[in-house]
């Protein structure tokens, strides 16, 4: 963004916040009348402010200002169960590849995770499992300013300890700004899953983890 554009935007922000003096305000208002492009920028900013106020009226601003970190306990039992589940998952994948490695046709399902609904809401994506093993091509929108890489952890959410069924240490962001991941559906039994995308390498300036919820319906 150029300095002049930045200066223009700051002036617009201050104008709409009623923080200009009379002389400055008159200059801005003259420009609003005579410069359609400038007016469109003012209108856009006004629309953004209106949208935020409407969100606040609906009580939706405060939740958006909560950290998105997920509180989960790492008890020794949970870790052991995760390792076991991972081993079972990998074993299931290998078994499938050996026994069903020559399928008549390749079934592919695309799952697009556009935005998280939060831990208390329902799943972000529901996929109804197919009869034949399916390659699930998942695409994740990780926001406006993604980290270059993410570690991926898929956990099955159960009534007891959560179990990890898939991990990847580092998955890069594609040209479209999304994270893409393919996984065989055999690794995911019907149930609820939490997909945790952790920016890599970790650091104080990194974006927060993104957590999506997936339901595999039986």
């Amino acid at each position, binding site marked *: 963004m150029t300095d002049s554009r930045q200066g223009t935007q700051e002036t617009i922000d201050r104008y709409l916040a009623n923080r200009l003096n009379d002389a400055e305000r008159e200059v801005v208002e003259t420009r609003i009348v005579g410069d359609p492009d400038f007016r469109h920028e003012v209108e856009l900013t006004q629309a953004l402010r209106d949208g935020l106020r409407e969100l606040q009226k609906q009580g939706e601003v405060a939740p958006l200002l909560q950290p998105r970190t997920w509180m989960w306990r790492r008890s020794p039992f949970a870790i052991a169960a995760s390792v076991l589940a991972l081993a079972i998952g990998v074993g299931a994948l290998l078994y499938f590849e050996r026994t069903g490695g020559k399928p008549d046709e390749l079934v592919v399902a695309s799952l697009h995770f556009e*935005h998280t609904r939060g831990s208390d809401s329902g799943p972000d994506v529901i996929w109804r499992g197919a009869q034949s093993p399916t390659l699930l091509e998942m695409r994740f929108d990780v926001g406006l300013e993604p980290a270059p890489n993410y570690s991926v952890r898929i956990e099955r959410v159960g009534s007891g300890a959560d179990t990890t069924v898939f991990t990847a240490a580092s998955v890069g962001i594609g040209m479209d700004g999304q994270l893409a991941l393919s996984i065989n559906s055999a690794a995911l039994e019907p149930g609820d899953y939490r997909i945790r995308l952790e920016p890599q390498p970790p650091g104080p300036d990194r974006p927060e983890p993104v957590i999506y919820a997936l339901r595999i319906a039986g």
Partner: protein
Amino acid sequence: MDTDATTAASVPEFGSDESLRQLRAGVLFLLNRIVREPALAEDLCNETFRVVLERLRRGPLEDPAKLDSFLAQTARNLAMADRRRTSRRQTVTGEQAAIDGFADERSDPSFKVELQARAKAIRKVLQELPNLRDRQLLVRLYLNDEDKSSICRDLNLTEEHFNRVVYRARERFRVLLDKRFKRPDLLCLALA
């Protein structure tokens, strides 16, 4: 447009119909912002152009480049005159002032739809910002009307980071609204 093209064409300062339309949109924006009442803003906008047209018929402006400024000043004057007239007419009791204060200047159903769309778009923009500080930044800037320097200081942000977040968020918001309405002119509905 109430200021018809025939009248406009007779006044060279207004230029083409398109430039007249743009001038009118600008004046209407100002008036909506001042009076916060779409119908009244519309009336005052027509009145502004009537006054300016009459003045231009009497003789051209010394500096034609100051037409924008002349229109803006006329609109402000008319809005202030209307405000004074209204307050003189009213026998204002405390209750009446309270009732007027709650007058719903946005009762137009199309505006409500527009407002919902905007809320949805800004929700998506906020959800797409993975960094909590960036979300706080936008809320503090556009909802709480806080000063840029104090936001940067409190959130320990550089100016570059601040500018980048605001710029990207605005661009994303613009894309979402354009996708929804196709025509950026519909943002004019924000002005009620």
